[in-house]
């Protein structure tokens, strides 16, 4: 009995002394709900092989939880919705590379910093012409055109080539098409660690103030914030954070000047085969969920419009035929990409705002209508006049004549050229990637940006397109045979 009592007192003392107050005060560890994107590699994403949520931020917050004695529940939320979710109490903490800024400091409880980032200049390995921001004058850099980095490069006197993402910029730099890149050191470190590339290197700082990434909590959750800060400090002290950072970035980003990547060992790049294997499915999903529905819907709507335009074009009414002629001329006389941009970026300025998929359907079906109208028109005119006359002598009106007599015969003439239109459309839907549609091509772009496997991934995407085209061509052949059965003995 005495021994039991002494043991209990000792345990109590231990718990009070130990720097993990959560365990001391509560029997049952609290559940902390963590808001994170889950689609933001390498910080918060799903491992392509296991589908499990992982990443730098996820591992950091798990380490914090282990120290602070929290039980975690991850809530995956889009970036735009993550702060409202925190306000509404649906999550307790955001672990998603939240940057410290005055607005957030005022409104939220921000933790101690667990990631430091700063602007750096990247050059081809060993290119001594570029050492600092001053050396960029008169040189060419590759940047996302809307980013703050593009502005910094321009201010330094560089010519800026616009690119999509860091991988594309790095490819241009390697190929010698640009001289340097200005970017966030974390993005650079991630790229270097993931690809294992030794062709480019960090030349130096871009000379800007760095930024600090923190956990965000509600201001009212002071106790939770205290626990988080104590845990972060402890993890920094015992090297846990450095370890996690090394794993992802081959450098320590948890301290203010973590230096450059040491690529001599550790996590290597994935093989081309692994990249393809993990991307084949997302590309297939992009094909089935976006590319094919977009093609089918645009083609169907486009054909109906084409028929109306063709009928207007051959109508005896000057106004109608003139309008149809103008429509066809404009559609065929301007680039499809431009038409897509007008619908997606232009029309919202006059109050016509469509979601990406709808905008793409609008643009593509109008484009199909412009091209197919001429096909439909010539197909209708290829039906002998006697067929129109015979239809009218038996009393059919205009629409009955078209529907029942003329169009079935015109279809025979129209199928081969319309099949061409359909194949073009299928491939043209890849332009949807520029209006935020995650279709087949966009999936391959995303994967290529992450893995640098441009040749393999784009070829693989091409294979998907080609297979669908082959299937469509086979369908065309069957349809032609079917339509020809009235005229071939």
């Amino acid at each position, binding site marked *: 009995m005495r021994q039991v009592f002494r043991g209990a007192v000792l345990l109590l003392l231990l718990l009070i002394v130990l720097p993990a107050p959560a365990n001391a005060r509560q029997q049952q560890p609290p559940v902390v709900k963590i808001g994170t994107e889950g689609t933001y590699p390498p910080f918060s994403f799903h491992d392509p092989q296991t589908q499990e949520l992982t990443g730098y931020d996820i591992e950091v917050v798990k380490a914090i939880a282990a120290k602070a004695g929290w039980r975690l529940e991850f809530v995956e939320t889009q970036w735009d919705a993550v702060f409202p979710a925190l306000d509404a109490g649906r999550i307790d903490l955001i672990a998603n590379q939240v940057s410290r800024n005055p607005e957030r400091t005022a409104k939220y409880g921000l933790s101690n910093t667990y990631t430091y980032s700063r602007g750096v200049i990247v050059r081809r390995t060993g290119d001594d012409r570029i050492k600092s921001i001053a050396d960029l004058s008169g040189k060419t850099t590759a940047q996302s055109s809307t980013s703050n980095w593009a502005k910094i490069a321009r201010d330094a006197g560089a010519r800026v080539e616009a690119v999509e993402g860091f991988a594309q910029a790095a490819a241009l730099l390697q190929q010698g098409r640009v001289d340097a890149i200005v970017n966030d050191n974390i993005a650079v470190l991630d790229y270097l660690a993931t690809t294992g590339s030794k062709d480019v290197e960090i030349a130096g700082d871009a000379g800007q103030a760095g930024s600090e990434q923190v956990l965000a909590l509600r201001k009212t959750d002071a106790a939770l914030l205290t626990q988080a800060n104590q845990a972060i400090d402890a993890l920094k002290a015992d090297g846990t954070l450095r370890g996690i950072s090394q794993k992802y970035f081959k450098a320590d980003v948890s301290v203010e000047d973590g230096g450059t990547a040491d690529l001599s060992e550790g996590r290597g790049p994935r093989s081309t085969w692994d990249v393809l294997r993990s991307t084949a499915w997302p590309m297939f999903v992009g094909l089935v969920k976006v590319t094919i529905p977009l093609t089918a819907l645009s083609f169907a709507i486009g054909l109906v419009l084409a028929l109306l335009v063709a009928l207007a074009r051959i109508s005896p009414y000057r106004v109608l035929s003139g309008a149809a002629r103008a429509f066809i001329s404009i559609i065929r006389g301007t680039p499809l990409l431009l038409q897509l941009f007008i619908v997606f970026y232009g029309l919202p300025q006059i109050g016509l705002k469509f979601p990406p998929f709808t905008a793409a359907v609008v643009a593509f079906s109008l484009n199909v209508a412009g091209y197919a109208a001429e096909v439909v028109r010539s197909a209708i005119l290829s039906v002998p006049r006697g067929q129109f006359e*015979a239809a009218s002598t038996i009393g059919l009106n205009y629409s009955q004549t078209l529907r029942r007599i003329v169009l079935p015969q015109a279809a025979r003439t129209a199928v081969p050229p319309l099949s061409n239109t359909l194949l073009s459309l299928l491939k043209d839907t890849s332009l949807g990637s520029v209006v935020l549609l995650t279709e087949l091509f966009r999936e391959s772009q995303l994967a290529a940006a992450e893995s640098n496997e441009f040749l393999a991934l784009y070829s693989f995407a091409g294979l998907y397109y080609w297979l669908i085209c082959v299937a469509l061509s086979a369908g065309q052949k069957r349809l032609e045979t079917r339509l020809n059965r009235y005229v071939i003995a």
Partner: protein
Amino acid sequence: MTDIRIEVSGLHKSFGSLDVLRGIDFTVPRGTSTVLLGPSGSGKTTVLRSLNVLDTPDRGVVRIDDVSVDFSALPAGKAGRAAAQRLRAQSGMVFQSHNLFPHRTVLENLTEGPVVAQGRPIEEVVAEARVLLDQVGLADKASSYPYQLSGGQQQRVGIARALALKPRVVLFDEPTSALDPELVGEVLSVIKDLASEGWTTVIVTHEIRFAESVADQMLFLDGGVIVERGTPGQVIGEPREERTQRFLRRVLDHG
């Protein structure tokens, strides 16, 4: 109901500066056959097409049975089209090149007009169509497609299609001109049967011997006017006009 089935008066038609019809007047009594003869360009086909309003005359009146259209006063737009459609519904048209619908079976070619345009019950129309096919000797071809038939058979389907509309009159526009010589006979005999069954017919043809045997009335056209008219005996046997004589000499020499 009058005994005059067709009454045409003062018909004028020009295509651009070309005056094709320059005042055509004639009547067709019920149950008779009228043959239009004349050199090419004489306007005979245009007369026939005017009866079916495939060509719209500029002036003149066409009456078929109790539907009459005065083309000088034909309103524009919808009302005009409706009037033309009422007149058109009075006649069935047989074309030189049959103009069958290639994507429809023989039976469907016959039933299309009655079912779709006239809105009659399909069972009734199909039964009638089978009787008509039997009548033109093609009962066994109901489910064939036009391309599977000979030219003569195609033209007989064309005739049956015109009859399926239950028209007041049947119009034939050179029904054998596009046929091989050995196929002409079967088509002419069908037309002859119709005439003897009491159908009112108007026929444009170059087959003089056939015209002679089928016609109750012959009209010889030249230059957009009727030059000579009468029974076959009068027009072919004893033509009074020099133009008629010249035409007959030419076609009879070749025939």
